[in-house]
């Protein structure tokens, strides 16, 4: 599905041992003062090649959004490296008083890396017209003046399937699907190479989800975009992605070609996840073997020892509670972090 033959295209993004830890202040009196540490992302490794779409799936709270934000340097990683187009962008931060801010290189790089959000309404300024929303990034980067800008905005609207006559309208005058189109147009305004789409269809109705998925697929072809598509809906992720990485409790537990991971999942969590996805076919549903997981996802403040999934794993052995399984290649392009897979 990508523009370039996959084997030949070089990595646009390489993420190594990425970690994001949040400090949680402990409420309570003097004696209990202190803080807890929440490991939102706990050693993630990813490679995304040019023109490729990587799907990131997993249940809520497993660290998908935080990974996406840390990759784009929208928050500073606690550890690990993020190499974009050969450059170590995780280093492009400077201290300003007590805070870390982007340096000039990272500010400039914004043009090439953009994010699309789940809730287009929350991410669009309600007091700005579509024109103002789409002009802002162009102005910030000093791109195109006056008349050219309007032409560029109309072009962007047409690209995402919106009627350019609506240029003076405000976000609230649009439906959810149309607002998501505005969010996509804004992300495309500066001609980025990499898009991180974080649950871009989760808030939309089924028929509108299909429209937006089709739009993203078309844009990717036409513009040669590289994309990280984040969602909890495995069917949608499989539909749009070349490869899929499955996250659990801040880690990637399995990664493979999109078709292969659904057809032949190897990690017990991936297997349970896939078996839980409902299929719109009553005949199949009646005969499907479903692995219903017991218990709940552990807290990332107190992650379990050993394998993060061991507390719910139907196949758990002793060593799973002791040793952390590493993500290793079991077949070309297929990586799994499980002691029981060989």
């Amino acid at each position, binding site marked *: *599905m990508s523009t370039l033959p996959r084997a030949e295209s070089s990595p646009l993004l390489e993420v190594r041992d990425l970690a994001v830890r949040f400090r949680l202040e402990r409420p309570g009196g003097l004696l209990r003062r202190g803080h807890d540490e929440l490991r939102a992302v706990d050693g993630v490794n990813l490679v995304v090649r040019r023109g490729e779409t990587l799907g990131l799936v997993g*249940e*809520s709270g497993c660290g998908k959004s935080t990974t996406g934000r840390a990759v784009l340097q929208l928050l500073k990683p606690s550890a690990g490296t993020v190499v974009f187009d050969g450059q170590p962008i995780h280093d492009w931060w400077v201290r300003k008083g007590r805070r870390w801010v982007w340096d000039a290189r990272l500010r400039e790089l914004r043009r090439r890396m953009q994010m699309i959000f789940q809730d287009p309404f929350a991410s669009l300024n309600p007091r700005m017209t579509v024109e103002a929303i789409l002009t802002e990034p162009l102005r910030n980067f000093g791109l195109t003046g006056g008349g050219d800008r309007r032409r560029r905005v109309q072009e962007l609207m047409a690209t995402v399937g919106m009627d350019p006559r609506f240029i003076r309208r405000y976000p609230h005058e649009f*439906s959810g*699907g149309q607002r998501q189109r505005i969010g996509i147009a804004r992300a495309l305004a500066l001609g980025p190479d990499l898009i991180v789409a974080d649950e871009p269809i989760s808030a939309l*109705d*089924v*028929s*509108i*989800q*299909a*429209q937006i*998925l*089709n739009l993203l*697929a078309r844009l990717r072809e036409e513009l040669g975009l590289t994309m990280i598509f984040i969602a*909890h809906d*495995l*069917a*949608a992720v*499989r*539909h*749009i992605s070349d490869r899929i990485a499955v996250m659990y409790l801040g880690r990637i537990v399995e990664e493979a070609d*999109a*078709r292969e991971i*659904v057809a032949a999942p190897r990690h017990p969590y991936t297997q*349970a*996840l*896939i*078996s*839980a*996805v*409902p*299929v*719109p*076919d*009553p*005949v*199949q*549903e009646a005969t*499907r073997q*479903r692995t*219903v*997981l017991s*218990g*709940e996802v552990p807290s990332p403040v107190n992650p379990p020892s050993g394998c993060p999934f061991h507390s719910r794993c139907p196949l758990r052995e002793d060593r799973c509670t002791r040793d952390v399984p590493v993500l290793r290649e079991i077949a070309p392009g297929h990586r799994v972090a499980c002691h029981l897979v060989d």
Partner: protein
Amino acid sequence: MSDTTTEPSPTGDAAEAVLTIRDLRTFFQTDGHVVKAVDGVSFSVRRGETLGVVGESGSGKSVACLSALRLVPSPPAFHPSGEIRFQGRDLLRLPEQEIEALRGNRLAMIFQDPMTSLNPYLRVARQLTEVLEVHRGATPAAARQEAIAMLERVGIPDAGRRIDQYPHQFSGGMRQRVMIAMALLCQPEVLLADEPTTALDVTVQAQILELIAELQASLGTAVVLVTHDLGVVAGTADRVVVMYAGRIVEEGPTGELFADPQHPYTRGLLASMPRIDTPPTGHLEAIAGLPPDLGHLPTGCAFHPRCPLASDRCRREEPPVVAVSAEHRAACFEAEAGG
């Protein structure tokens, strides 16, 4: 009324409907417009059966359920018209205190957001036992025992301790279970479940749906399951009702409706869904356009502006309800009559 210890009855023609809704209409008055949220909806559900109600947001699914329990605030709603038969009575014409005695007792409802039915300021114990003490006259000690047993049954570990906690001390999935426990404590004849798993992750959804099915099988409850997910319907429902713009556009036994969908909207919904059981297609046959504004419905068939088969007649006339087979009906000029 009925003996809940016997086996659930089969869903064949002989089985009698527990709840029957006939020609329900619930309109709202907003900004000088009449919003026809539910416009002539009829369906019934039998003992031990699951009826799936599907449709996109705004199609009237929630208002239909809320109307059945007389929970729609009026104003802005007009008093619903039609008939809702339950235990030989018409709920729309019952005095308020009688419908109150049925709600949460013989007829229960669960919601997408459990905090719609749970009180954040009361311990779970108090909320669960109250149902039993008020509706069934149980003693406090017996009620507590029964409540703990039900919490265990819905899969809450350490129920004897957790019953004394507040709702916010439970995770989303566990709160959903508490709400289900509360709804089922009185062994209702009918459970109206309005998107009970929409906010949950798929693995938790699988747990909750399995739980509802188990309890339903042992108690013989009739379940109306509202969802926008055709996958959920395929796995749980015996029969399906598809709603669009406040009306039922198609209904039928689940197997038949999925194997031979007749309404272009039903077909469109099915084609819109990416699915993991078939090879990816690259392109989805999305339904064009947007659902209509219920305050300004198009003439003729409400679906015609989005319909690939729309003809002049569809723009002018409301489509008839065509019987495809004994239990399968579609409101479309193009549907094939048969059966």
